Every structure is written in C-alpha cells, then in structure tokens.
C-alpha cells in the first residue's frame, strides 16, 4: 500500500498549487516532514518559529536567495547554509510552499500570493548573494518576538587595551544597531586589540535577580547606571562573577563594557530571574562555552601517547597537523610551511566545532598562550636568508608525511632541495614543560640551507644558543641562532640540531 501511495505521488503530476507535496519534495529533507527540523532538530524548525510567519517577505527572500551563516531559532543557533531556490522553483510553487508552511503544524499566518513572490523577486534585481540572518532581521524584524535586550546599540573601538578604557575619551571605529538583541562581538573581524560597549534596555519583573558575567579579557556590567559586576583584568574565561540585584518591574537600562587584549576571547552575560529555573543568556556566547555554539569535544592525549588532530587550525595554514603531547605540551605543524608554526601549553584543542554540523571555520588552540613561531615556508637557501627571511624561497620542498613512535610522537619527513630532513617532536614535563625538537639532515646539502625558527614576533636575544619569546625560552644545540630583524634562523649542516622550547 505504501508503495501504491508512492506510485501515485510520483505519477500524478505534482499539482502546481499543492504546497504540501512541493514542501515534501523541496524542503522536508532539511526542515522535516513535521516542520520540526530534520534528524531530531539538527536543522532549523519551521513549526512554532517566528521566522516563516508574520511578514512573508522575509521567507520569500530566504527561499529565493538562500541563507548563510548563524541563525537563531527558538533559542538555538544553527550555522548552516540554505541553498537558494529561486532558480529552481517557480513563483507559483514558492507561493504554494510558503502558504503551506504558514498554515501547518500550528503556524497560523496568511496565504502567500504569486504576486507577492513576483514582487519580491523583481525587487532583488541581480542580487545573487545569500542573505545573512542579521541582514534580514534588520529589513524584517521578527514580529512579536522581543529580543533579549531591546534597542541594543554596540560601539566598537580599536586599540591595545590591558584594562578597561575610559570610553568617553575614545572614538568608536564602528557603531551598529543590533537587531538580534544579543551581546556579540564576533561580527568584527579583529579578535585582538579591541574594546566594545553595548547599551540597551531590558525588562525584568520585580524581584532579586542574579546577574552572571564572564569574559576574556575584562568586562563590566551596569544596570540603570550602577556597576554591578566587573572582571577588571586580562585573563581567561572561568572567572565568573555573580551578583544579585533587587529591581522593580519594568524596563531597565543595561550597559556592558568589554576589552580584549590578545589571544583567546570570550564574553557571556546572563540573568537568572528570581523564581525561574534557567539562566536567560543575553549574549551569543553562554557561560563555559566561550565563542561556541557547539558542544565541547576537548581532545586529550592519553597518559603515554600523543593525540593528533589534522584539521583547520587557527593561526597556521589549512594543512594543519595538531599534536597534543602528554603533560600539556602542544604544537601545530604546517604541512604547507613544513614546521611547527604554533606551540602552546595547557589544553590541546576542542574538536567540537569541526566535528558537529558542517565544521565551518578554523579552530583555535584551546589556550590563551599560543606562540606563533613563524608564518613563512620554513626552508630556504642560506644565501636567500642572509639578511631577512624570503617571503618565497627558491628551495624545492615536499612534505612526505610522518612516522609515529610507540608514544605517538611524530617524526615529520620533508624533502628539502632533494635531501631528506627529519623533524621529530616530543614533550618533556620535568623540570618544566618542554617541547623537544630534533631536526636531522641526512646528507650534506650541495648548497647550504637554513631553517626559519622564529619570525614576526618579538625575539629577545640571549645568546647564539638561546632566545626568548613571551614566556617561552628556546635553547638550541648543534647550531647557532642567527638573528636578523626579529627573525631567528638556524643554518643547517649535515647532522642533528636540537631545539628545546620551555615554558616558565
């Protein structure tokens, strides 16, 4: 019987006006036959959502051109891409589908006419880009849904701040209306050296409500002009401040100030209304999950074996090979530049981002203290690197992979000008956490080659065998460090060079 039904569905021409069948064909794979979002809600629901009801122009625009990037529906953030359907579905069918969606699963909104779709299509002209949720919400705010913070305005300031600046003396680099009503700094490309402030209004019932603030680096929360919570210094997430404040019923002014110096960043603010069980988050980030709307899957080495993470790691190239060693020593080797470009201590990396949804973007090391050792191809002829490291080297290189020892420590194999270089890494934990690297040139090179140890960072020269970067001391045996304009270079000979990176 099921087959018969299927047969009938496939053979009776899809009636142009049958929105339900068209919905099944074009939409249900992702939004679910029941409108609740396919596969247990991994995709945005259309049932009981404010998005498809209200002003139909919003939905017509999404169907025509698609939607890309984060979108919040009923308190959950989805970061997917809906492909544009305007070229695939006729205006008649779009009207039928949207009419179906707006009148199904408890949704009660007016029908969409073919004329409405035609008008919206004409108004878009040659535009082909996907919409973003923010852009659409500015044009067509969700109806009857109050944002967490109303009338929210953000100010963005550039500068190297190590404590909260006096905002009255700064000039904003950008001012934005935030229709989402959520505290969110992530729309700004810079993730270092900035400060922001947000001002808006929030409704509370009468009672003593608990405010929750956490940030990396500092932040300050003011309600009705009174500072109620502060994280004054540079530091990581986890320094949560909670403060109960008695308020009357009604609208209250809310102001949040924030600065980020360097490294990781994060900001979460929420309020637990008296008598309610859950915290209402006023920021895109929520406590304990800085910068993320995905579950944490922190990768950890075992007691005696390193763990490898090959993926897109922020701060190195796309061919990143992260290695987390026992004892909290970590690195990311660039398969393009052929060296450990990132070195850090503490936790290794959170794979939750790449291992859920589509895995969009780069993942930063799970540490605030990352040494970015270099950012150029690491091998060059010594003659090319006489005074500065060449942006593009003449040395032919080829990555040949890696061998793991019994503890999972990698020994990378690289061809440099036809010679084999082995670059082995392992960790020591006492007396101090140390990354030990052995670079071995198996033959004498016909023309001398050099290895880029550090560039683009403030090197403190100690000697030809030692230098310092931030809280990392680098000691070299078997070669001398050659310094050139904040660059540290090792001129290689046949044999082994040992480099030790030690944290204070």
């Amino acid at each position, binding site marked *: 019987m099921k087959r018969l039904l299927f047969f009938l569905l496939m053979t009776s021409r899809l009636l142009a006006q049958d929105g339900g069948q068209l919905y099944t064909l074009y939409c249900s794979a992702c939004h679910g036959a029941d409108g609740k979002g396919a596969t247990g809600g991994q995709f945005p629901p259309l049932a009981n959502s404010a998005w498809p009801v209200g002003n139909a122009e919003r939905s017509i625009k999404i169907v025509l051109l698609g939607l890309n990037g984060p979108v919040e529906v009923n308190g959950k953030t989805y970061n997917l891409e809906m492909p*544009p*359907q305007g070229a695939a579905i006729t205006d008649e069918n779009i009207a039928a589908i949207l009419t179906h969606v707006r009148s199904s699963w408890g949704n009660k909104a007016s029908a969409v006419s073919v004329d409405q779709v035609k008008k919206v299509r004409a108004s878009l002209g040659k535009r082909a880009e996907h919409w973003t949720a923010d852009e659409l919400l500015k044009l067509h705010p969700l109806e009857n849904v109050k944002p967490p913070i109303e009338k929210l305005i953000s100010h963005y300031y550039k500068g190297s701040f190590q404590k909260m600046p006096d905002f009255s003396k700064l000039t904003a680099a950008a001012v934005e209306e935030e229709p989402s009503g959520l505290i969110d700094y992530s729309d700004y490309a810079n993730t270092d050296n900035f400060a922001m402030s947000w001002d808006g209004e929030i409704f509370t019932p009468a009672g003593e409500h608990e405010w929750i603030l956490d940030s990396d680096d500092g932040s300050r929360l003011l309600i009705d002009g009174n500072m109620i919570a502060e994280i004054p210094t540079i530091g990581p997430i986890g320094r949560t401040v909670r403060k109960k404040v008695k308020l009357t019923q009604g609208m209250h002014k809310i102001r949040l100030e924030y600065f980020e110096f360097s490294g990781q960043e994060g900001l979460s603010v929420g309020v637990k209304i008296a008598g309610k069980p859950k915290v209402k988050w006023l920021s895109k980030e929520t406590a304990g999950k800085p910068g993320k709307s995905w579950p944490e899957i922190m990768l950890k080495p075992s007691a005696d074996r390193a763990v490898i993470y090959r993926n897109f790691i922020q701060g190195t190239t796309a061919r990143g090979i992260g290695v987390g060693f026992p004892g909290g020593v970590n690195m990311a080797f660039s398969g393009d530049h052929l060296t450990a470009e990132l070195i850090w201590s503490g936790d290794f990396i959170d794979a939750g981002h790449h291992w859920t949804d589509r895995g969009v973007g780069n993942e930063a090391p799970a540490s605030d203290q990352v040494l970015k050792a270099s950012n150029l191809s690491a091998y060059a002829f010594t003659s090319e690197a006489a005074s500065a490291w060449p942006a593009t080297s003449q040395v032919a290189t080829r990555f040949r*992979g890696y061998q793991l020892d019994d503890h999972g420590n990698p020994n990378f194999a690289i061809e440099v000008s036809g010679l084999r270089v082995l670059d082995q890494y392992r960790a020591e934990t006492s007396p101090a956490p140390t990354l030990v690297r052995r670079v071995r040139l198996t033959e004498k090179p016909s023309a001398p080659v050099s290895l880029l140890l550090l560039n683009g960072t403030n090197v403190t020269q100690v000697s030809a065998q030692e230098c310092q970067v931030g809280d990392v001391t680098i000691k070299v045996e078997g070669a001398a460090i050659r310094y050139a304009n904040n660059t540290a270079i090792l001129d290689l000979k046949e044999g082994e060079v040992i480099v030790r990176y030690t944290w204070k």
Partner: protein
Amino acid sequence: MMIRSILTILLIAPLVAAPQQSDYYQRQEIPLPPGEVMEIGSIAMLPGQKIAVATRRGDVWICDGAYADDLTKVTWKKFAQGLHEPFGMFWKDGWLWMTQRPEVSRIKDTDGDGLADTYETICDKWGINGDYHEYAFGTDPDKEGNIWVTLCLTGSAGAGSDWRGWCMRVTPDGKMIPTCSGIRSPGGIGFNAEGDAFYCDNQGLWNGSSSLKWLKPGSFQGNPTGNKFHKLANLPAPPDVTSGSRVLAERKKFPEFIPPAVVLPHGKMGQSPTAVAADTTDGKFGPWKNQLYIGEQCHSQVQRVCLEKVNGIYQGAVFHFLEGFEAGLIPLRIDPSGIIFTGGSNRGWASRGSKPFTFERVKWTGKTPFEMLTMSATVDGFEVTFTEPVDAAAAANVANYSMDAWTYILQSSYGSPEVDKATQKITAAVVSADKMKVRLTVDGRVQGHVHHLQLNNIKAASGQEMWHPEAYYTLNEIPTK
C-alpha cells in the same frame, strides 16, 4: 462463504502483489563500536574478510566479522586517528591508501602492534584554504595504478584555492595530472566495469540537477568556476559557457564539454548523490552485472544505473533500487561474494535515515525482482529488457506506457526548474519472441532531455508485479543505426 472468499482475496491480493525490498534484499545494520561516533566516509576491503572504515572525524577502524551470518560477534579495532576527513580508501600491498582533504596518503602498521605508525604523504599539490566545502574524493587505483581525485569548489561556489573544480589523477609516485575541469561539488567517484571514471556532482550553480558524470580525460563537466587553473599547467582554457543556456547547446559549441551521462532528476531520484560502484559480482547480487550503483546521502538510498555509449558519449537510465538506510549514504563497496557494504552520516546535511551515522550490509535473498533490467536508445525509440519474461499481451499494449521529457537550464545560479517540457507518444510496442524485451517506437524524443518512462499494468508472465515501474533515460545522443 462467498463474502468471505471475496474478502480473503481482497485482503491477500495486495499483499501478494506488492513487491517489497525485503523479498529480494536483506539490509542489515552492522554493530559499531559502542560509544564511538562512526560517521563513515570510506570503506576498504582488507585480506581475510576484514573491512577498514575511515570516519569523517579522521579515525580508521578495522572490523572483523562483517561477513558472518551472526553480526552480533563483530569486533572492532582502532587502527589510526588524526586523519583529515578521508573520502576514498583502499588496501594495496599492505598499505591503506586514502584521499584526505589535503592529500593522497598511505598508512601502515610497520611494527605489527595493530596501530598505524607510518603516514606517508603521496601528493599534496592541490590547494585548500580552510573552507569547509573544499572536499576531496578519491578512487581506487585505475588500470595504471593512478588515483582519481575530484576537488570540490571553495564553498561549493568559488575557486579560492588551486585546482578547485578539477579532477586530478595522482600517480603512485605522487605526480598530479590535471584531468578534467568543470566540477562543482562531488559526492563520490568510482569506475564502471570497463574502467572509465565517473563521479556524482550535486545540484547547484551551473548544475541544474544532480547527475552522474563521465570523467573523460580532457573533458569539461559544465561548471566554469575553476576554469582559470588551466594556466597553472599550460593547458587550453576550458569552455567559457553561457549562463541561461542548455548543456546540449553549449556542448555543440565546445566538443570537450561532456554531458552528464545520467541525470538523477532532483527530488525524484535523490538529491545528494555520492558513491559510484560497479556491480562486479558476476550475478551474485542479482542480474545487474556490470551496472552502476549510486549512493544517495539525502534520501538514504542506492540507485541503479545502466549505461551505454552512443556516438562515443556515455548515456543511460537510472532506476530506483534500494532504500530505507539508517543515515545518509556516502561510501559504497561491493564485495565480489555479492555483498554491498555501505555507511554514512547526516552531519551537516540531513537525510531521510534518521540516525546520525550507520554501517550496513545488503545481501541478495536469491529472489530476482521483476524489473526493467536495461533501457537503451534505438534509432526510433527505446528498448527495454526485463529480468524475466514479461506478460506479452500487456507489454505489447502501447497504452501501458507513458513518456515525458525535460531538461535543465545551465546557469550560474543555483539549480534549475525542469524546463523545455515535452510529452512523447509511444506508437508501437513490440515484444521479443523470448518475452525478455520490448521495443518501443517513440514519437517526439528530444536530444539532450531526460526521458521519463512510466510503465503501467505490466507484469511478468509469471504474474509477478514490477518493483519499480519507472526509469529516467538521459538522451545525450540519438543512435542513427
């Protein structure tokens, strides 16, 4: 008594008549290691009836017992971790070769402790820039030992890194040979029985519907986004096709434009095709010898394709085949003993199968469904062969057939409606003496169109009903003799 008999007939008749997948094929889930997220992207067959799978999270596990009748005794051992989303893996001479996002590699356990310790990079000469959509899908070795790799466009829409939108051949010693241009977003790649390479490209920009495409060396596949990379290897510029045109019109201008061999009409025959695998079981999986199976991620299905070459161009028909898999299918392996192993994931792209990931096998029960075995183009129509003798009276009645056809716009925007619709008239249906074929004379066929053939009321001579009475034939070329 009379009433009861009629009732019995009414109740039983539909049960007897309606063919079910389980009559012909047994689909079984293979138990996975408990607690592990096994989003399977690759399957490789190892000696001793072991199977290696690679997951989207970058683990390789080895499964023992997947061939046994009792699947509860399956055991798993983790072999490797930390790989970058391998799509395409095979075993050769003691090594597991694989196509990872950034490279073709091979890995091995040299010290015999059960864990891979040697990870050799064979070729990493294509570009990646960190975009999540820059997938790479690789094949088994071809007759020369080369691995064919299709490189998805950046964000499935751009050419942000070198060689995006191209198919490359990688030689065993790591050379990379640019082979085809015009690719959008592959979901899988494989060979037909003759050894020609095919891949599935997904509906999107410059791709009106998903389809199975023939990777003829030197060919252009339809999406010009990655054309500029020809300069990297001093190759001739691929066709600068015109948006709003049709595949047929453009390939008449540009002979290197090879049309999709078989269009998989969007929504009707899946909407996210993946693996390509030829039935090399020599009849152990049913009568589909040398036909192709296509994995389908969104609809959690396997489609069946028969191909023929007309005027040097591949074309053919796609039929519904297997369905009801537990998640979106990605890789598909056919064991010569007559078992399909498949698996997949719906992470990031939803599927009808509602589990987040799955590993399954399908065996033939030995009962052959009554189906169209092949559909091929003739000078004046189509010839359909059957899996068993057909009820000749029904099959000779032209009223029991209907046909309509359409094509898609070749355009820079996403997808296409079905356009240029036409309805064909079946003017004659001649059944062969052995009742194994029917030759249809068809008025109004359109070159370049997908021709949808619907059979109604046509049963086997034995009375068996047809399991899937429709086919979609892509008529790139019309035979002249």
